């Protein structure tokens, strides 16, 4: 007998080591550019005063800290996409990776409603600043990735209510730490839960797609 995981969703967790200096520079830059000039002029959802969303051209900025982050994020996306694909590596390596990338600054009670990203294949979220207290107490602001198997747990009995990984049904909640990067398929619905910290939560998000 063999049990296999079908319909699996690839999710990559990566971490940028020694990221304190980079994150400090990024946070400083983003806070300085939390202005109308840099705000996304065509938000896809109702904008909130508690969450600033930048334009989608972040990785075209010339600042060294942006380019350093760009290298880390896009290399990770490329590696994930290649690892998840049956396409031969040498053929995959010739593909061109396109991206829309932006930053979010979230303040007390800010959140982002459940959504996915049309016309992209891979999405990534990098944590610049998690906004937790000095004592490390979580204050919301979770990245929640929704299980694609909606309704799969509608009927539970004693045999299926404690399924083990990778079969367990349920959403994935991530409290991102500074320097942490998550890459997942763009079709996956996700949200950011309300942030209740006293500080700011800062993330960079990217939608990617490959062309010849």
């Amino acid at each position, binding site marked *: 007998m063999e049990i296999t995981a079908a319909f699996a969703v690839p999710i990559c967790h990566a971490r940028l080591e020694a990221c304190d200096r980079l994150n400090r520079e990024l946070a400083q830059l983003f806070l300085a550019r939390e202005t109308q000039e840099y705000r996304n002029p065509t938000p896809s959802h*109702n904008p*909130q*005063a508690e969450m600033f969303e930048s334009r989608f051209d972040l990785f075209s900025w010339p600042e060294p800290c942006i380019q350093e982050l760009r290298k880390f994020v896009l290399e990770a996306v490329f590696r994930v996409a290649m690892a998840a694909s049956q396409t031969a590596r040498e053929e995959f390596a010739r593909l061109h990776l396109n991206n829309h990338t932006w930053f979010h600054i979230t303040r*007390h*009670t800010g*959140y982002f*409603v*459940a959504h*996915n*990203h*049309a*016309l*992209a294949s891979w999405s990534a979220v990098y944590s610049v600043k998690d906004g937790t207290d000095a004592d490390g107490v*979580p204050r*919301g602001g979770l990245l*929640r990735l*929704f299980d*694609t198997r*909606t*309704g799969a*747990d*509608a*009927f*539970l009995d004693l045999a299926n209510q404690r399924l083990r990984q990778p079969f367990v049904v349920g*959403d994935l909640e991530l409290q991102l730490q500074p320097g942490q990067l998550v890459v997942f398929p*763009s*079709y996956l*619905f996700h*949200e950011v*839960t*309300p942030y*209740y910290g006293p500080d700011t939560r800062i993330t960079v998000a990217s939608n990617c797609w490959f062309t010849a």
Partner: protein
Amino acid sequence: MTALADQSGTVPLFAIPFTAVNTGADRDFNARLASLCESQRSAPGLPGPGLLDNTSRDPLHFRGRDDFLDSADATAGELKRLIMAQASTVVAGLNSIGAAEFGKLHIQARAWCSIVQRNGHVPAQHFPGASWLAVYCAQAGESDAGFKSAGVLRLYERRLGSIYRDASTWELKSPYCYGNHTWSPVPGRMALFPAHVPHEVSVVRSVTSLILVFAMIRFVDPNAKDGRNG
């Protein structure tokens, strides 16, 4: 072609029923119900916010015990009759079995109140083991100016086909359009939809707390011989 078909013969497939009804409950009833919910929150010995609702990390959301409709309180009993009558009527109308047969089914419900203060929310949830979820609004306030979609019941879009769009599918009309569905709670009104549908209550931006009663509902065939719920 079904009765739902338009002139081109197009019909909505795989549709999820969502109903919002005006129960006709008056202001006095809703005030009594809100007061009953508040009394649960302040009752000694009850777990504090977030302890009963293990998915909630929001101290501004209180979720009460799930035997709310079993209380001996007259207002709770009145609400139970109201929710069950409305749910039965709606669900009977969605069924192909006749009204007489449907009327023989037994309705069961487990309900709890949620009190959501300003800046609080009800996190994403759905409920196994029930077929329907009723959401009754006992109290709601006006959102502060500038806040859109605050304190709404939001049912999540889950059709993954939304990932590819072209110029013809960005602006599809209802019921074909992609996107979450929101319902603004109003005192005396009740929403009803399948319990497996993921949903949330978005952050409340009103000085008046939002008070909702959630009821998981199922219908049981008392004559079912195989032990199932009919």
